């Protein structure tokens, strides 16, 4: 069975990822960095369940979205501050 894919942009890059995965996973798959902390340390998902907010990104212009809580959608625009 051919796995269906979804096209979206992450930090301006056009990428293809498997359908059904989370936005957090899509960011990791394409090797983009997650956020930087207030003192500039690189961070990445910790809890995987929407509690720690380390995976927060901007999705379609809306800030503070938890990437682990959202499934990839065609045409989504995702921006991390990494």
């Amino acid at each position, binding site marked *: 069975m051919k796995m269906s894919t979804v096209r979206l942009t992450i930090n301006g890059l056009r990428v293809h990822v*498997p359908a*059904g*995965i*989370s936005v*957090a*996973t899509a960011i*990791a*798959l394409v090797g983009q*960095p*997650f956020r930087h*902390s*207030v*003192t500039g*340390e*690189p*961070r*990445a*998902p*910790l*809890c*995987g*369940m*929407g*509690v*720690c*907010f*380390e995976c*927060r990104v901007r999705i379609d212009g*809306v800030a*503070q*979205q938890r990437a*682990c*809580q*959202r*499934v990839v959608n065609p045409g989504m625009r995702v921006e991390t501050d990494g």
Partner: protein
Amino acid sequence: MVDACDIVVVGAGPAGLAAAEAAASHGKRVVLIDSQPRAGGQVWRHDALHGQPRVAMDAIRAAAGNANVTYLEGTQVVAVEPERLLLQDARRGFHLAYGALVLATGARELLLPFPGWTLPGVTGAGGLQALAKQGWPLRGKRVLIAGSGPLLFAAAATAQRHGAHVVGIHEQAGASAVHRFAAGLWRWPGKLAQAARLRLELARVPYRTGSIVTTAEGDHGVSGAHVRGGQGDERIECDLLAVGYGLLPQVELAQLLGCALEPEGAHARVQVGPWQATSQPRVFAAGEACGIGGIDCARVEGHIAGLAAAGAAVPRALVQRRDRARAFAASLRQHFALRDDVRGLANDDTTICRCEDVSLGAVRTHTDAREAKLATRCGMGACQGRICGGALAELGHGPRGGMRPPLFPTRLATLGEPVLSSVSDTRGYTP
């Protein structure tokens, strides 16, 4: 759009699904909400590669598929007012009036700070499992799993099924405690069978007891960890490090509603009566929010809470099943009790509050969470103290204070929804 119903169930894990099904089967109009994109909670989280277990699909169908149940995924409670909730999903904020409420808000991991724990690639143990199920790239990655409790096995098995090379499972509890726990498992045959299956699946993975990850190292991400155990200190190379010290009840919504809490170790759980009623009228709670008890407990408590919220009779057999399941939880707590040294891993330079980058040294002098927050911004960030609050309570720096709305970072447009005027009246729940 739904704006009123008989019963709102918050959380679509095993407890919430059972509650929704039970209440709906008595003719009640139920709204079931969950913040995740799919129903199942954490233990039944949908796996992008392997789907969901049959028992989970059946439970989801029985609840979310019931004609009396409206299921709203990706939806969170951000504020409460008398008999009405303010909810938010990815698109909008809206109010929902209810006759009764069932809180099935589940658990999160107890994550304890240690040097290096903020490096990318360091996750919770349950955190790794959740990410694996979301499709996180694990194939060929060396994964080290540590912390405490049976969740370590579940996380290891999931990682392995996703192609990871699990280089070790390090349990902080000593060998004798773990053996006593295993020897008592015959009392819960289902748990024994599950433990045996996982052990078999992980037969090639080294399992160490009395072993603690003290430090994570790496430049831009984790590349290794120092482990202290019976054989002294050693450094283990890894691409991912998953450390979780068990689970904590999620009580924030109950707190906001003014429900009485009681201690669960250094943390809090929702106090409930025999039929899962909280101290607030028409508010019930079930599952991990009432104390970490595991899936069997959550399902039977959800069933009881759903019946009670619907005003239906609760069969005595259910109450007996609940008490039996709770006994398993007590055994877990006893045998996987945290050793003191896991509370002493962070040093003054170790970040405690990951949202605001506040170090342990900065908060050490404060004995009260509110005082520490005002002086250092610890707990003031996006997670609202969910991570550092649990850690500081475990480290003996005072329990978390009360909750104030909004429960999660919220869009201004949501807060601008009409009828908000009374939401700011939190009736004395301020910390």
